[in-house]
């Protein structure tokens, strides 16, 4: 398994080549934050910037989030871990960016850490993939032979809870929400501007951070991400009050995969599930 330092060097090497040849005006990667353990998203625009590029086990940000920030760039290079590459696939499926306008620098990575807790990120809380599903250049050796456990295994005990307990759990969690919308900010799939909750005509829910408004916001957002969420876990990590949003998104992703036979962002030629249909979808999914 290529270590982070080597990946960082490969990333720099490739970024330098791309920027020197002006094949791309910008390379989306990471740079040093206020300390080693807190990297920041970084857009390298010149060969000089390449020196600032860094890659270590804390670089969890999903850089696909920033693709739409460069509308006029003809081509963009982006460092993409497994989940980030799936996010790129969904953005391509939804025609927000074209595959040929991207140079994807694939990063096979495992053993990422959460800067807040400095602990290894439990792979069960993410999509469970180690290698990017789509890339032009692979910056490290493909990771083989990792014991892959189903990303949905972590749901088992929540599904086993009886509905009263689950209701109490989720009401408790969602009541904590202070509507800072960091989850929306961190999510590469949430690119709608304005978001439905910001609307006044109709006013779907109250803006105040109380239970009814929170419930409408979160339940609808879970629905908007159905079949689109790539399970990167950024929303939960971004949440200041620590709501385990990834659990709900995982459950919706699991149901979508079972009902429609398709995981989000895995194949370029797939169509997002909720803007598609199959005549032979079974009516059982409504029971």
């Amino acid at each position, binding site marked *: 398994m290529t270590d982070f330092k080597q990946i960082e060097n490969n990333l720099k090497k490739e970024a330098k080549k791309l920027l020197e040849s002006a094949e791309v005006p910008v390379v989306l990667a990471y740079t040093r934050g206020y300390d080693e353990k807190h990297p920041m998203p970084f857009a390298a625009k010149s060969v000089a910037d390449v020196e600032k590029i860094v890659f270590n086990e804390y670089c969890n940000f999903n850089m696909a989030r920033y693709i739409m920030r460069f509308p006029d760039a003809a081509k963009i290079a982006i460092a993409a871990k497994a989940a980030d590459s799936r996010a790129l696939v969904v953005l391509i499926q939804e025609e927000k960016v074209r595959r040929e306008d991207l140079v994807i620098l694939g990063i096979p990575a495992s053993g990422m850490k959460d800067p807040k807790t400095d602990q290894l990120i439990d792979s069960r809380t993410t999509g469970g993939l180690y290698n990017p599903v789509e890339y032009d250049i692979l910056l490290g050796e493909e990771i083989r032979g990792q014991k892959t456990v189903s990303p949905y295994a972590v749901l088992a005990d929540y599904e086993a809870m009886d509905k009263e307990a689950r209701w109490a759990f989720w009401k408790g969690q969602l009541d904590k929400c202070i509507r800072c919308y960091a989850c929306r900010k961190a999510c590469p799939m949430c690119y709608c501007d304005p*978001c439905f909750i910001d609307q006044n*005509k109709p006013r779907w829910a109250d803006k105040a951070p109380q239970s009814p408004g929170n419930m409408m916001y979160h339940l609808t957002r879970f629905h908007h991400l159905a079949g689109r969420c790539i399970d990167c876990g950024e929303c939960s990590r971004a949440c200041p009050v620590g709501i385990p949003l990834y659990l709900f998104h995982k459950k919706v992703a699991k149901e979508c995969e079972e009902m429609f036979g398709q995981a989000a962002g895995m194949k370029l030629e797939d169509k997002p599930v909720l*803007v598609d249909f199959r005549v032979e979808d079974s009516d059982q999914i409504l029971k």
Partner: protein
Amino acid sequence: MSRIGVFVCHCGHNISQTVRVSELAHFAAGLPDVVVAKDYRFMCSTPGQDMIANDIREHRLDRVIVTACSPLMHEHTFRKVIEKAGLNQYLLTIVNIREQVSWVTDDIEEGTAKAKALLNGAVYRARLLAPLSSRVIDVNSDVMVVGGGIAGIQAALELANTGKKVYLVEKNSTIGGHMAQFDKTFPTLDCSACILTPKMDAVLQHPNITLLTYCEVSEVKGYVGNFDITVRQKARYVNHDKCNACLACTEKCPGKGISGWDEGLIKRKAIHIPFPQAVPQRPVIDRDSCTYFLKGKCRLCEKVCEQKAIDFEQHDSFLNFKVGAVIVATGYDLMDTRPLIQYGYGKYPGVYHALEVERLFNSAGPTSGKVTMRDGKEPQAIAILHCVGSRDKNNYEHCSRVCCMYSLKFAHLFREKTSADVYQLYIDIRAAGKGYEEFYNRIIEEDVKFIRGKGTRVAPSADEPQRLIVEAEDTITGKFVRLPVDMVVLSPAMVPRSDYKEIARLFNLSTDKNGFFMERHPKLAPLATMSEGIFIAGVCQSPKDIPDTVAQANGAAAEALTIVSRQKMELEATTAMVNPASCCGCQNCVRVCPYGAPFFNEQKGVSEINEALCKGCGLCASVCPSSAIIARHFTNEQVLAEMEGLMEF
């Protein structure tokens, strides 16, 4: 603040029997914004209607709620009433307290309570109703028919006879389609040319039909009533106005090209007309076989043409037409049977496919009607193989419907014109049309040998190298049979034209998995399509015989008339609209709409909706993540308000 009028109907005692109507009116009077609330025995009667009209003027009402029977019954009536009284017809809500309350309960308490809740919901909704005006567009009265086969010809004649102007576009240099290639037609054995050429001639002579042969549709814009279609007129290199069809040029021309009309059985001159009765009776020059175009010298045709009609400088030109409706009748091709190596088509000269045999029988064909094979000999034994590629999951799963009948016709013609033994290898004989079974019985009596088993292999005979062996299992006896024959006739699957994808893209048609165009509803709207104003007829919709094709052509003509017979056309008012301020350009609406009404405006980066195509179903409004789409008359606010009102009591 709105001024709402509530009018409760007794409907004789249909409603009043289980809903206390006066109590309901009294309850309504107490609701905010309700200015007048009355009940009357028959709201839909003239006095009832007059009462509403008077109250609108007297109380300056800006919303009306009629609490009576189902909107599906009288919404239209009351819209007209309030419109006459000067109120926009969409500022009306109907509360269904008859079919969905009084008739479905016998408990007056329950009925009244429910009626109150429904009325309360209606008041919430009425407050948010907006005036809508349905757009009226004028309709171009011309029609374009794409495809000059029997379907296109029939539709064009029917429409032209009603006084409408018709543009008939045909890709080939003559109209007539596949039917003009046949010799006889089943089951009456009419000569195909005898019944078709009069219609072809009628098309040529008809003042209302503009014939556009050697043309292809290149671009389609606009919408129902206002299509703007560009047609590419391929260069003929012959000026059809000057040419008087003396055809001297065709004798002199040295160029040799494969005759597509005769399915490649013989060659034809570079400058040619496909067959004697071609309409228009004017030659065209085929570039790929004209010596001048290939080698730069010759121009013999130009020399012999007294009319000076030959013009080598001609090039493709584009013509533009405005029409109100389009009928697509592009017909079919036969499947290329070369990939089915077990039949050896293209490898063994004795193997023919159906259209080639039609040309052999045709007196204007390559052998002037005499059944002689490629080696010049007359066949002594012939095998006709059914279902080649049809009813086959590995190729085409559909049954092509007409091959059984034309195979029987072939058998008759072979028995009549030659002394050959004729075998028919079939799975089922499908002879369900009028007079078809009788025709089948007649053929049996002509001593044609029927073998119930699909032909599985054609190979050269070992001991008689000139002849072929057809292998099959006669499933009735269970015996494996080897038939020594001279000629094998394949009845291949009928499939859409090879450019069906292009036609589907141009006219926004969807196709089934084999490429046949999709009708709006298989039983109730077989000729309409999902694109308003575009109709289909003939085999391009699915395999069928000539009688059904003609019937569909007449049907499609009638459907086109429903549009072009009107000068004006009222569009749906309850269409959808995008609020550009809230649209984030995700294009979900563009992806889901079955009518292609939303489109993405590249410059502005937002979606817009072509109201002429929008049917008002509201699908786009519900898939829009930032609720930027307003589904008029069923907006998010109106539905949410009604729900709140219904749940209040």
